[in-house]
């Protein structure tokens, strides 16, 4: 008999939502000693499923029918107090945001001990130490005495795992535990979960949107779409021989490594960065200088006409700062930013204006980058109007651009909140293109999007780049995306560009140890998505 059995589980959404049921007729089993991945895009109901198992559904969501059997009991029939006993002790959970899941005012050791005490299982220092050691954190004594803000994201996630494992639960539910982490940290956490799971023979229910992670960790996979499970099976089967059309589409949308790149562009340099340096100052008072935090040091980049240069690196590596230096949102203190023949760094604000037309930017967060109080048409027309086009002409141009990014013309009259993330990102691209720039800077344009939407946006950008002859500086943390989009890549680590070269070459034979570790950390790096002609 399985450890955990979910049968025909249906959960209703409050009336007035985009669909009636959050999840519909979900059935799956989880055995001891296996990792079951639930994969799906945002809104597919995967988090609702795990919340139902934990008895943590928001009050607005009601279970309509179904059973959740765990150790011979139906979890849905349990009283709150009984469920509370089970939570933590028999079913552990790890959350997505390690930054907010820990109490900032409590020492880490005390928080782990609390879990033990609440369930009447002691909470001695020795046991806490053991747990911290079990999640491979260095110097357990120091960690136990630290407050959460002193730990990095990866360390906090390890503490969360230690807490989840404290009472040796039979089932561990991990809801996107690595999504907020950098790739190298993600790899370590995935390794840790796998190792702990194998050692203790737990059943792990792992929720993710990332097929790379699935390939890395899963024994079995359940694919969810619109609240239903559309396909289940062993990981190797689902990943390499997907049956359902949706699974095939999802896997086809996973960026493929190393496309065939046309010959290196030999055009003249559009943008040249020489020795760019930017330092942030933290703290400091009237007479006490703050601490210097170098964000970018001595960055050299050349971008030739028509090429796409990828700037890759983990969070905090300075890649976004460097991009913002180019558009003067951040003012570097040293170096040359040469755009054709002008050094942009030395320009004053009023002399910048002509260059604003020629250099445009697409932002990361499609929800934050559009003014919520203005109509889409006005947002797109804003640039041309600022540069002297009259409003009716600019609005006509906006309508053309909406067609170019494959949105219907009616969109111009609506407000940004009426659109999905992918549609908003299209609006953001249309806004950037409204000025007909030569150089487009894309700052993580797809990292906030679901994989299938991501594929559409990447295809759109590629198509526009070719049709309009754009030169692009493409910033991303996702090496798969970089490999698909960029002709050349520059790898950044702690503000320094450590390696630069043709994408295919860098990926095939990375020279710098950091590049090597980045490449080794791509989740599912041994899995090549099947190229399916049908998808």
């Amino acid at each position, binding site marked *: 008999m399985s450890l955990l059995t979910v049968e025909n589980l249906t959960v209703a959404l409050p009336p007035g939502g985009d669909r009636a049921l959050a999840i519909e007729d979900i059935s799956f089993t989880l055995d001891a000693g296996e990792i079951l991945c639930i994969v799906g895009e945002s809104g597919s109901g995967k988090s609702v499923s795990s919340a139902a198992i934990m008895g943590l559904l928001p009050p607005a969501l009601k279970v309509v029918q179904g059973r959740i059997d765990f150790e011979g009991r139906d979890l849905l029939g349990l009283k709150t107090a009984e469920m509370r006993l089970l939570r933590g002790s028999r079913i552990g959970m790890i959350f997505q945001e390690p930054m907010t899941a820990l109490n900032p005012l409590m020492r880490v050791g005390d928080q782990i001990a609390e879990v033990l005490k609440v369930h009447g299982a002691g909470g001695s220092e020795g046991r806490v130490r053991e747990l911290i050691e079990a999640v491979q954190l260095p110097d357990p004594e120091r960690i136990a005495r630290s407050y959460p803000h002193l730990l990095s994201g990866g360390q906090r996630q390890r503490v969360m795992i230690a807490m989840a494992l404290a009472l040796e639960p039979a089932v561990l539910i991990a809801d996107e535990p690595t999504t907020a982490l950098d790739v190298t940290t993600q790899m370590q956490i995935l390794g840790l979960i796998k190792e702990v799971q194998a050692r203790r023979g737990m059943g792990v229910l792992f929720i993710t949107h990332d097929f790379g992670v699935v390939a890395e960790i899963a024994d079995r996979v359940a694919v969810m779409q619109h609240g239903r499970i559309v396909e289940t099976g062993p990981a190797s089967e689902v990943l390499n021989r997907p049956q359902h059309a949706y699974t095939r589409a999802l896997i086809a949308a996973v960026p493929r490594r190393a496309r065939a790149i046309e010959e290196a562009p030999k055009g003249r340099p559009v943008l040249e960065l020489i020795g760019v340096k930017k330092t942030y100052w933290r703290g400091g008072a009237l007479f006490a200088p703050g601490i210097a935090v170098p964000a970018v040091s001595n960055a050299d980049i050349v971008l030739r006409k028509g090429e796409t240069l990828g700037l890759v690196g983990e969070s905090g590596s300075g890649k976004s700062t460097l991009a913002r230096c180019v558009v003067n949102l951040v003012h570097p203190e040293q170096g040359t930013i040469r755009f054709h023949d002008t050094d942009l760094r030395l320009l004053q604000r009023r002399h910048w*204006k002509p260059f604003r037309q020629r250099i445009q930017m697409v932002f990361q967060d499609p929800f*934050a980058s559009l003014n919520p*109080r*203005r109509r889409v048409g006005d947002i797109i027309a804003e640039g041309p109007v600022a540069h002297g086009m009259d409003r009716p002409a600019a609005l006509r141009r906006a309508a053309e651009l909406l067609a170019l990014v494959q949105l219907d013309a009616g969109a111009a009259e609506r407000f940004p909140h009426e659109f999905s993330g992918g549609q908003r990102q299209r609006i953001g691209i249309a806004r950037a293109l409204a*000025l007909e720039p030569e150089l487009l800077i894309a700052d993580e344009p797809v990292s906030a999007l679901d994989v299938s939407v991501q594929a559409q946006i990447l295809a759109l950008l590629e198509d526009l780049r070719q049709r309009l002859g754009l030169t692009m500086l493409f910033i991303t943390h996702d090496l798969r995306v970089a490999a698909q989009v960029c002709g050349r890549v520059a790898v950044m680590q702690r503000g320094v560009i450590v390696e630069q070269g043709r994408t295919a070459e860098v990926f095939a034979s990375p020279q710098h140890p950091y590049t090597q570790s980045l490449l080794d950390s791509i989740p599912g790096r041994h899995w090549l998505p099947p190229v399916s002609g049908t998808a």
Partner: protein
Amino acid sequence: MNRILGEFLSTFLRNKGAAVGFVVLALVGVAAATAGFLFPFSPWDMRGAPFMQPGEMDFLLGSDSLGRDVAAGIAYGARVSLLIGAVSTVVAVVFGITLGAVAGYAGGVVDDAIMRFTEFFQTVPSFLLAVVLVAIFSPSLASIVAAIAIVSWPPVARVIRAEFLSLRSREFVQAAEVLGRSRTAIVFREILPNALSPIIVLASLMVASAILLESGLSFLGLGDPNQISWGFMIGAGRSVIRIAWWMSVFPGIAIFLTVLALNLVGEGFSDALNPRLARRR
């Protein structure tokens, strides 16, 4: 836009307190607007015997020590209260938004200078400052409005500055910068419209405190001598409260209800404009 407005109104009116406050405020407004029609004489006129009980000699709310109609005084006083409340709030909000916006958008030394200036006003007790200002500039509608505005702009500046600080680094503002918009366009078209909701809430509460301040000033005899006002009526009735309670009680109730109504309305705005709260209802 109409749909957004409708949504806003429905959330606003679903809050019962806000609806009640709105009705009370409307009644006060009607009283102020129709004062000349209901009481077609000056509220300073002697209309009958002094110290008449409410209901006697056609005095709905009694008469005062000089035989003046208390009800007429309240109706005409509503004009003064609402006028001073509204005008001084507008002045304070405009001034506060300007300083707060400059501080929040410019940052750095400018921000520091403006905030120290703001703190200077916040460290002086506001009522005392208002008393001093009115006493220096001799009581008149203009000097009272100015005094109230001067003591009540600092919170506006602080709120606006905080909003600007957080909105300035938002991506849509950066996008406008990259598009080459001018600084004024960024401030007025991108940031300000997104920073207004807390100001609307704050302003409705400021009207209430302005009315209180004005009443306090005229109670102390620092009101405009040509305008009857609620505070003045209470001040005048204070010495005879044992024989003629209605002289101070009815203006007091008028102040109480108006201020309460404004607070309820302000809270309603706050709930309706806060999307997170609005969704939970």
